[in-house]
């Protein structure tokens, strides 16, 4: 079946799927979110053609700010190739016709689920986070009326108690992801379920960071060059995960690693969670213990230690 090049597809959507009134409403929320860093702006989140939990908040933010000349990257847990990333990238290719990439440096809009790319972000880039539960106080105080008061008063004693209970039980702060952080000295925000390894990247980032929570219908933002300070105690300062081994494929150190099970004999390896970063390093000739061409089928000589 062929169509003339100018024919409209059988079903056509507005550019980037959302209608213009929805975009205007989201755009106003984004502007107020930037003006009040860390504050969760309520917005009239729409039903999207994907279930809640698949990034409906991030998709609506991206749809509201995406332009025809933008280059979009979508990652899911650091990977460009997993289901969520492929689905959402295809969604915007189909409904907006924008150029997409897997290279962090080439994208000016990056939608992410649960990671911040290892390649440092640049001025002019927008990082859009998919957020499941935007309220850092929600599991401590279920009433929205109360959490709003606590935010207004900047009263975050509850979270400090929660972190203290971590220390009392485990001897250290056992919160490893969605680690709460104070934005610009006032609001504490949930940075979405990124590993706490990524928290330092948010502080004074040159990129604009916008968070969209579709089910909870909240948008919040961190402007560039804004302080994002993880909560901690003087005698239990914030620390990030450390890995005892470099990436098994590219040898990178100081990056966030995923554990990959290789067999049912306890074999496993640790590789970069950021697939674009890992592929870029391999293209530059960096190798790890399990690099091709002599990559063994078993991981007997592979790393045995995970993150601490």
């Amino acid at each position: 079946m062929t169509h003339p090049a100018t024919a409209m597809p059988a079903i056509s959507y507005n550019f980037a799927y959302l209608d213009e009134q929805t975009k205007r409403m989201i755009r106003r929320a984004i502007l107020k979110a930037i003006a009040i860093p860390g504050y969760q702006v309520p917005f009239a989140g729409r039903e999207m053609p994907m279930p809640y939990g698949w990034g409906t908040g991030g998709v609506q933010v991206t749809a509201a700010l995406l332009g025809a000349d933008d280059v979009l990257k979508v990652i899911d847990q650091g990977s460009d190739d997993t289901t969520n990333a492929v689905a959402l990238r295809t969604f915007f290719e189909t409904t907006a016709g924008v150029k997409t990439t897997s290279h962090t440096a080439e994208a000016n809009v990056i939608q992410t689920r649960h990671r911040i790319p290892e390649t440092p972000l640049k001025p002019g880039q927008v990082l859009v986070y998919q957020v499941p539960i935007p309220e850092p106080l929600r599991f401590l105080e279920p009433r929205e009326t109360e959490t709003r008061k606590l935010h207004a008063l900047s009263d975050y004693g509850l979270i400090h108690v929660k972190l203290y209970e971590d220390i009392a039980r485990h001897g250290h702060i056992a919160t490893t992801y969605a680690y709460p952080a104070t934005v610009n000295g006032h609001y504490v925000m949930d940075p979405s379920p990124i590993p706490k390894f990524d928290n330092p990247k948010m502080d004074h980032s040159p990129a604009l960071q916008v968070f969209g929570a579709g089910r909870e219908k909240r948008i919040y933002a961190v402007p560039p060059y804004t302080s994002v300070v993880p909560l901690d105690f003087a005698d239990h300062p914030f620390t990030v995960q450390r890995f005892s081994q470099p990436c098994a494929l590219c040898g990178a150190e100081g990056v966030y690693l995923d554990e990959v099970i290789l067999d049912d004999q306890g074999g496993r390896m640790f590789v970069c969670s950021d697939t674009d970063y890992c592929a870029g390093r391999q293209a530059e000739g960096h190798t790890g213990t399990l690099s091709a061409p002599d990559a063994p089928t078993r991981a007997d000589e592979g790393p045995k230690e995970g993150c601490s």
Partner: protein
Amino acid sequence: MGIAAPAAGFAEPVHESQRTFVALMWAMAEPALPRPLASALTPPAPLSPELAAVALTLLDYETPFFLDGPLAIAPVAAFLRFHTGAPHTLVAAEARFVLCADAGALPDFATLAQGTADYPDRSATVLAQVDRFTAGPLIFSGPGIPDTRRFGAEPLPADLAARLAANAALFPLGIDLVLCAPGTVAALPRTTRPVTPNP
């Protein structure tokens, strides 16, 4: 009585409002830094093409607007109502957007919606016209500004620094200010604080 048709809106509403919004978004994200804003609109005077583009990008039936000073004339109100469907209010405190033709005569911020402690986003955004931007005499710091940034515009009220400092002191409440000059836009959100230069 003849009724003139309102001037045209965006030729390409989807893409022109997107470009205008992105300019605004980055103006808000990096305060006191003027950004290019192209507008081909020919709105009724004294509404400038840039301010008209910002208004058509942000206003709709959910956002009452207030016209200040020389903008408070029927052709401007009719133009905005026709293209956006936004209600025109004569009570400044009810407006989500306050449009001002002359930034030198900005309304008293205390008369505008400041937001509430629970919902600080329910505050007014002031959209004002200036003739040009200058690199000073004001110096600002705050989120979006790596260290400090020099900024100025003509015309601005002589006491603007004091008024912005008072506005910033209300954080998280307060108004957000967007300034439009020919071909450019800049913003001073409530987080942007004037800095006294070291002698």
